């Protein structure tokens, strides 16, 4: 092309005819318009989202943290997923069963936590909560069931406040699925600043008003500028076209990691090699709720097992096997383990196992960040291995039922 274009230039093109002063810009505009129209059409076909979503079933303003409306059923299609059903029982849990006493002879695990445990963006039958009891039952030869009380945005404070509901399900074991979000939003219960409530998600005007109020509530100008910058980025990514483009680009581990590592300020606090002040503060706040939760479990005589699962950045770093010297995706795992174990809980390490999972970042939705079905199956496998390795005597491989358990 280079040589040809030079040849054309050397031959000397005819002088620009007057009509070209209109035609050339018009042609350029038409090209841009057609391309945008095609891309918007394609993105709408492949990355659309439903107007209804999970928030129809959630009470976001409950002072004790997000709760689902009992017996509510709703559907949501995230741009990166197919249509997912969310069905809640009469206690407001996505448990796949009614709340109430466990069946006789069953070993019951009650799961607590936030969206990863809840199975956001994944059909219930493919979530960790659905798969784990099946695998544990097969592995141990006993009837294991899992009652899931994890909730979208059910961070540490919410878990603490809803813990009596978990105990009411008569658990033999409480499984707490933790992510970095459970630490950085440990104190959040109810409305998240970054979460637009249902009332503000209808019209564009309502959305704008909501955001303007948010900006007005901020204390400093730098806070406002940073918010607007991130918000406009998020707005583009949230559009179907933005989602389609970013989804495509973030399939690449390299591009995703570069984008992730470019995040400014303390947004990468959880993978820093050293504990930053923000990191220490998050851990301090989390530790407060962890003490409350482990104490309640201890008082009820129920063992509590906590497990930290990686987000997409941690997973990508671990799979790659190397990371820049100022990062360490395993640091937070160690720190959380210390907090949990020091307060009498048990801790299961699955993060180091992600080193053996090739390209594990592909098991997350590239833009949304939540794990997909495949991830749920992988973590189920890892947890099955760890929970049946003897640390929980009742779940030891093929352990015979005790007389007491048989009676129960």
């Amino acid at each position, binding site marked *: 092309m280079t040589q040809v274009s030079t040849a054309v230039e050397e031959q000397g093109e005819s002088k620009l005819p007057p009509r*070209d002063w209109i035609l*050339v810009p018009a*042609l350029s505009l038409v*090209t841009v318009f057609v391309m945008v129209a095609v891309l918007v059409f394609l993105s709408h076909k492949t990355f659309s989202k439903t107007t209804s979503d999970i928030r129809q079933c959630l009470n976001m303003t409950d002072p004790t943290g997000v709760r689902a409306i009992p017996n509510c059923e709703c559907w949501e299609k995230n741009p990166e997923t197919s249509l997912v059903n969310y069905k809640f029982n009469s206690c407001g849990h996505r448990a796949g069963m009614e709340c109430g006493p466990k069946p006789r002879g069953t070993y019951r695990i009650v799961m607590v936590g936030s969206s990863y445990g809840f199975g956001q963006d994944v059909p219930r039958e493919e979530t960790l909560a659905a798969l784990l009891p099946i695998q544990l039952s097969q592995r141990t030869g006993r009837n294991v069931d899992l009652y899931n009380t994890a909730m979208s945005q059910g961070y540490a404070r919410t878990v603490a406040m809803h813990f009596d509901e978990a105990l009411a399900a008569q658990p033999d074991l409480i499984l707490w699925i933790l992510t970095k979000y459970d630490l950085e939003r440990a104190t959040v219960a109810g409305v998240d600043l970054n979460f637009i409530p249902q009332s503000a998600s209808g019209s564009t005007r309502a959305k704008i008003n909501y955001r303007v109020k948010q900006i007005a509530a901020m204390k400093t100008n730098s806070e406002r500028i940073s918010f607007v910058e991130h918000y406009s980025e998020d707005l583009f990514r949230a559009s179907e076209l933005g989602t389609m*483009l970013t989804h495509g680009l973030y399939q*690449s*581990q390299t591009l995703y990691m570069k984008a992730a590592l470019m995040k400014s300020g303390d947004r990468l606090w959880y993978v820093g090699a050293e504990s930053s002040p923000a990191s220490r503060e998050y851990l301090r706040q989390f530790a407060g709720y962890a003490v409350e939760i482990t104490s309640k479990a201890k008082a009820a005589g129920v063992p509590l097992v906590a497990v930290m699962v990686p987000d997409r950045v941690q997973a990508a770093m671990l799979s*790659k096997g190397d990371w820049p010297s100022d990062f360490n995706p395993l640091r937070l795992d160690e720190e959380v383990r210390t907090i949990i174990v020091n307060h009498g809980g048990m801790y299961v390490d699955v993060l180091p196992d992600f080193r053996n999972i*090739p390209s594990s970042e592909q098991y997350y939705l590239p833009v949304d960040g939540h794990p997909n079905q495949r991830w749920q199956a992988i973590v189920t496998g890892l947890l099955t291995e760890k929970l049946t390795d003897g640390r929980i005597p009742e779940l030891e491989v093929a352990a015979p039922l005790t007389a007491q358990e048989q009676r129960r």
Partner: protein
Amino acid sequence: MLFGLAAALISNLSRAPVWRSIVLLAANIIFLGLLAHNFVVLLPFMAFLLLGYIGLALLQNRSSKVPWIIVAVLFAYLWLKKYAFLPKGVFLQFPYFTLGLSYIFFRVLHLLIEAGDSSNRRRIPFLSYLLYTLNFATLLSGPIQRYEDFEGDQFAQSPILLDWSTIGLQLERIIRGFFKVNVLAVLLQAVKDDALAQMGEPLAVSAKFYPAFRLAVVYPFFLYVNFSGYIDIVVAIARLMRLRLPENFDRPFSSTSFLEFWSRWHITLSNWLRTYAYNPLLLLSMRRISSPALQSLLGVGCFFVTFFLVGLWHGRTSEFVVFGLLQGGGVAINKLWQLGSAQVLGRKSYKALANHSFYKAFARGLTFSWFAFTLFWFWGGWQQIDKLFAAIGILPWAEVWVLVWLSATVVLTTWERLRSGILSIRTSAGPVFLSRYARVVYASALGLGALFMTVSLKQPAPEIIYKAF
């Protein structure tokens, strides 16, 4: 890019050579200042330029010490670039600016050799020397322009034409270059890095076959879009300043031999070495060895040395020695094949064979594959190369390379056919797809693509690889 466009705009405020020279000098100084930030780090760089000019002045005053001056400049270059074969203790121990030094070295050497030629005794003023050696458009990665060409355009009383049509063509070329560097290079580098990461993951050998294939195939394309995209931008900016720079690429992957490849890839470098290394070397050896039977083999030897130097120029470590050996070996074997085939088959039959479409297709595939293979020593260190070859073993790698050859044969031939088909659609004004309107359409499309990519990714494009040399 914006800096270049601004300089072009100011430069065109007057057509007077003095004005254009003042603008170019100011642009060069500002450009250097923007890159270096600090005057002290520029001192060795400036000393090198001064050494070059002193040598030039001596030669212009009919000094007979041409070889010594050239050796001094060569040594100063190797010393400043910290070539690994020099003892570490002799190097300067503070950080200093070396960006573009290789390209300046080529220009300075060109001036010195030409000045040493007794038939060429013109004087080059210091300002002209600075404008030529520091031309910001060619400073970082070339192309390597000859002084006569630069002088012809820069100091002409009536500079070359710059009409709206030419401006449009240059803007289209800048967009094309920007798209190559900021979109294609980003994507291709990501493919390469992903493949590299997968090769290190705990996967079965069979699962590493595809990443190994991607790794082998993608880097030549990455290097091409990265370097040729940059060249597109600088050639267009220079043209907007009424300077014509030589082309550096001519569809290299359409080459049907490794010798042809090097006449289409980094053209100004191979031309420079052909003029100042291959030709003198061949003349010298022909003078020494008069046997007609050996004369054709002398060419092979000179090709080997010249392209070994091409490889060696790219870096200072032992990996680049191997890269040079593979480049030199590639062209030498290619030349031997041509000579041997012509001898065995007869010139006519060999020519007919070489023009056969099947032969050309496979030769094109082989040329690409060899270049892709040699590039492992261009981008990888020994440790990385060892790991990569150990990751799947010798036999699977051999299978990968056979697959690369076959795929390149099919894909590149299909592309050649498609391209000639597209260009055969013509009106009386020329090929439809090279018309002004077609260019507007694809420049707009590429521009929009680059915009979306930039907004979606918010990542800087990879560095121009040849900037490092």
